[in-house]
């Protein structure tokens, strides 16, 4: 390779250097820092103890809480989001409602974090509008029944507020992709509506529905701001546990903090990977 060819090679790569350098410094290296840290003990010697600690009852409970909250809010968001999107697209509702719902969903899916937490405190907090309405008008005392917004179920109700519109946005193209001809063909061959759903629509919709549910799961699992603003860091979920590790609280254990982070990375990576695979599968039928 002569000097000219060498210069050409450098020239070819120079256009992408800033991006790779930036990503290396502010994305890859910080992540690697967590990876390496999870394999080191307090004195910097290699160890697997952090991962052994990760399997302790306390951290297992933290992860189970996070998985439960994310799964419940994802499944609820998936089911109801699909129904709502179906209602405005194929349910025979006036067309303008569809545009309005899509626009609102774009806003609501990005309305999260601190303001969202506040809004729900004013709604179903101890003296929230809906709480008082249920108690004084309908005679249902939700706090007497053990409900509190600062619990798992409370967080699920709040997360549902950004899960639902996100589901509406991502499932709408799939519902749009259900061709009228398929239904007509099925009916012509004598299929009942139930048969059409069981044999045609659901098989086609299964990959996008599953994919969306997984995306919603990852969306909730990585959420920190809403839970932190709502519970002030008292609820035991992975993102809050990591917040405490960053702050360095009583149970501060640097290595365990990194291992906690790695556990999250693995769960997020599996979710996003599954989502990508399902996404590719749904593109086969729905374009």
């Amino acid at each position, binding site marked *: 390779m002569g000097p000219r060819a060498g210069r050409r090679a450098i020239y*070819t*790569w120079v*256009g*992408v250097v*800033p*991006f*790779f350098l*930036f*990503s290396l410094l*502010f*994305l890859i290296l*910080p*992540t690697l*820092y*967590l990876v390496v840290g999870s394999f080191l003990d307090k004195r910097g010697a290699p160890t697997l103890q952090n991962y052994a600690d990760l399997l302790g009852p306390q951290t297992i409970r933290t992860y189970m809480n996070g998985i439960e909250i994310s799964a419940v809010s994802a499944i609820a968001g998936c089911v*109801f989001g699909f*129904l709502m999107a179906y*209602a405005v697209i194929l*349910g*025979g*509702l006036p067309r303008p409602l569809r545009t309005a719902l899509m*626009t*609102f969903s*774009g*806003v*609501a*899916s*990005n309305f*999260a*974090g*601190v*303001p969202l*937490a*506040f*809004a*729900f*405190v*004013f*709604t179903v907090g101890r003296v929230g*509008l809906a709480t008082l309405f249920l108690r004084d008008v309908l005679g249902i005392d939700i706090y007497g029944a053990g409900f509190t917004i600062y619990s798992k179920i409370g967080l699920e109700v709040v997360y549902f*507020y*950004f899960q*639902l*519109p*996100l589901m509406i946005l991502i499932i709408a193209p799939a519902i749009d992709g259900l061709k009228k001809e398929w239904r007509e063909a099925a009916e012509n061959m004598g299929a009942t509506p139930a048969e059409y759903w069981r044999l045609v629509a659901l098989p086609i919709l299964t990959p996008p529905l599953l994919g969306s549910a997984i*995306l919603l799961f990852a*969306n909730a699992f*990585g*959420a*920190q*701001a809403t839970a*932190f603003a709502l519970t002030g860091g008292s609820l035991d979920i992975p*993102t809050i546990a*990591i917040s405490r*590790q*960053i702050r360095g609280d009583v149970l501060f254990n640097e290595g365990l903090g990194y291992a906690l982070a790695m556990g*999250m990375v693995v769960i*997020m*990576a599996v979710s*996003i990977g599954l989502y990508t695979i399902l996404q590719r599968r749904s593109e086969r039928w729905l374009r």
Partner: protein
Amino acid sequence: MSGVGGGTPITGDATMRQALSQPATGRGRRRGGSTLIWWIVFLLGVAYFVIPLWSTFTFSLRAEPFGSAYTNTLDDPQFGKTLLYSFVVGVITVVVSIGLLVPTAFWVRLRVPRLRRTVEFITLLPFVIPPILLVFGLIRSYSTGPLPLTNTDIGSSALLVAAYTVVSFPYMYRAVDVGLRSIDVQSLTEASQSLGAGWLRILWSVILPNLRVSLIAGAFLTLAIVIGEFTIATFLARPAFGPYLALIGGNKAYEPAAVSLISFVLTWIAMGVIQYIGRGTRVSVAGAR
């Protein structure tokens, strides 16, 4: 002018399609019973969307004297200060993000297509590394060592911009990629080169203007997310709008309701601009949740 002549058949086609869809509408009417169920589903969802906003609104009006929750909020100098800080950080983030991604996507498409999957993979990584993990890694990497950025104010703010830029990668790159796909990069570049333009000139006067629509949509999404972002700003101890909101929530009674609604309106404005420009086809899955 072939464009004018080409217009007529399209109109004809649309009319025909409308005529063809008539029987289907009739069938829809036959299913009147199920339409009622869809109305109920829709209204239930709307109720869930509206009730928290309505509760927040009525709560904010309870402050005495009337409207003081809003006037107090707007009178608090910290409100404007933190909002301005977050806005400036957001604008810088947008500029950095575009400055990094447009040349990269352009170059990858034109010269090194084999890097495409790698670049795509990196821009999707922020989905796997949520903000809480990103800030965790950044703080540990840059509080000591050769680049102790968190020791100074300006360093921390730079780190904040860097983190937000990373957070913006997934949808910014998608916006750029979709934009580049819709234009003939190869021909445009060759045409510019034959007119004597250099690379910077091509990027600035040919590629960027062609990407305007998708870039503006991505920019407003970034702004909407950055302005209310809480996690990263809090742990980097920045005087940003998100941490300010949380602080208000801990100290005041009615003002949190006012700021919640104000920030909802801000999100609404940003999304409204995106919908207006992009005509509502984009889906955003990134965010500061």
